[in-house]
């Protein structure tokens, strides 16, 4: 199976909806990811990345204080440079060209977010 091949990966979840954070953490941990933390807005996301140095950041596009695109660019310019996977309840076509310019590994619509989809995106990256 796909998750047996997976190298243990540390992961940070950034989303302003606590329900989503809770279920995503449970699901991804069950799939073998090591979820090292979560953050509810852009500022705490940046702080968490510096403190926890995750391999992957699952980053919501719409945050209360900024956008996931801005955070992704900021992370790409920093030292840690985790892989960023953008996600949103909106579809890619609703977000337009911003996804392509955000220095992210990829984008998954939340309704399409499965362990398989995330793993595929990450392995493609590796």
């Amino acid at each position, binding site marked *: 199976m796909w998750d047996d091949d997976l190298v243990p990966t540390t992961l940070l979840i950034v989303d302003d*909806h606590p*329900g*989503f954070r*809770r*279920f*995503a953490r*449970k*699901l991804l941990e*069950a*799939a073998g990811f090591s979820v090292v933390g979560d953050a509810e807005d852009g500022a705490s996301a940046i702080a968490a990345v510096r403190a926890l140095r995750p391999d992957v950041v699952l980053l919501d596009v*719409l945050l209360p204080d900024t956008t996931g695109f801005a955070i992704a660019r900021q992370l790409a310019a920093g030292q840690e440079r985790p892989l960023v996977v953008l996600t949103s*309840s*909106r*579809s890619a*076509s*609703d*977000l*337009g*060209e*911003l996804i392509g310019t955000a220095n992210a590994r990829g984008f998954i619509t*939340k*309704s*399409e*977010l*499965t*362990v398989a989809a995330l793993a595929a995106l990450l392995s493609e990256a590796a």
Partner: protein
Amino acid sequence: MRTVRLVVWAMGAALCATLFVGAIRGDKLSAGKASFAYAGALVAISVGVGVWRRRPESRTGILLTALPFAFVLPDLWPVFPRSTLAVTVTLAASWLAAPILAHVVLSYPTGWLSSKVERGLVAAAYVFALVYALPLLLFYDPRSPRYGDVIHGSTCPECALPLTHVTWYDVTRTRQLFDWGLSVLAVLFLAVLVRKLMRASPRGRSVVLPLVAAGFFVAAQFVVQIALYHRPVNSWGSSGWFWIVAIAELAIPLALAAGLLWGRTERSAVADLVVELEHTPPGSVRDTLAQALGDPSLELALWLPEQRIYVNRHGEKLELPTATPERAVTMLGPVEAPVAALVHDPALLERRALLGAAGAAARLALENERLHAELRRQLEEVRASRARIVHAGDEERRRLERNLHDGAQQRLLGLGLALQLARRQLGAEANGTVELLAEAEGELRAALDELRELARGIHPAILTDQGLGPALQSLAERSTVPVTILAVPEQRLGEPIEAAAYFLVSESLANVAKYAHASTIRVTITWRDGEAIVEIADDGVGGADPARGSGLRGLTDRVQALGGTLSVESPPDGGTRIRAEIPCAS
């Protein structure tokens, strides 16, 4: 007042008779000349008193009565060279006719000097006459050898008023100075007369023309005298000049009186106003009133009784100023229910009768004007409220979209993750349940897609976040008929315009997909001269009816609410072209 007029007339008659008899007895003038001069003066005095009686509220009558006195009084000394009184009166009245003449001509026909230039000129003429007469009365000795050309008799009496006689007072030199000064004033007077004529309305011009012509004649003949002889002529010594001067003295009061007695007065200004108002289009009553009242600064404030406010002719609210020395306010109509208020030059307050009559004459036109202003105001309110309703609708849609996104959508997404987790945790043990869960996830995904579609239809987040270009691109990508976006302005156009343009394109794309059987759609949005132009053209079957379907109707409303226009061209087999022009002013 009646007695005063009677006494004045009697004094005039006595003066003219005295001068007539004195001139003939002293052999100063021929009988014909004396008759013409003094009978003419008496006629002029009679006319003046008549005007005074008829229009007691105006100064014109008094001035008209005073003018012939001022013309003939200086004749006293030449006629009675030995009389101390005659000398004194002649010196005092030397130039009195000039300011009175300027005053009566320039204030005609209302009796009031309407401009600063006119007031200044008349005041200068009065000061001039006083400054000329005073030194003569106080310091001058008519018996002095310097008396020169003014001497009329060999034995000269003293002036009645001298304080002291001074030998240095050179009357000839002083007179020359004053003659030249007076001719300068006369030229100015001519210029102001021309100005008065130019400024008058066509009807007003015909009223003032005879008088202006007479005034012109008098002032011009004086200027000619100065230019030719460097001093006023002694008209008694020259037959030609005698008649010119005598006719001039008579022409003015007769021209004036004729005009006034023919009723070309304030009443005729009001009559003119009534005729003018017949042809005054709505919105121009102020201009007509301003002309009739002779106050270009006039402002008209129309009273709207329901709103209890004053508005201008455009229906915009006005605050009445408090009365100041510069501005006065007069209410028209009954106190408890005014029709309008006039904000005007305080000089008009002196002519209350005219103001009242003009207000009464304009009553109907003002009512009409008021209704128009009210209508304009209501239209403006409707326009504003329509724009507000559209804006509020957009706001509400945005809020709804946000609520869907933050609420139900997020819970369902969480639920989807929970189902995934449950499926994982069940593992291979419960095959049937896993399949069921997978099916539930599929349903949930479909529900989420529909919900997202719904939210996007309510209000596209991409439009708010990124603007028209990306939003249209997103629309184009989802369209079943290929869309080419030819142009979209780079800059943001403001929420209402962007929303209108977006929904117009969105609705049109949906219509094309449903009815047009088109193979391609072209979308062009340009921004020119503060106006957004949105065009959507397809190559389908055409024949679209803008009246059919509520979608396009609603979009027309939306565009019109922003002050724009929407047109649909859809000939059969000719494709459909929708074009909206939306101004940015809203």
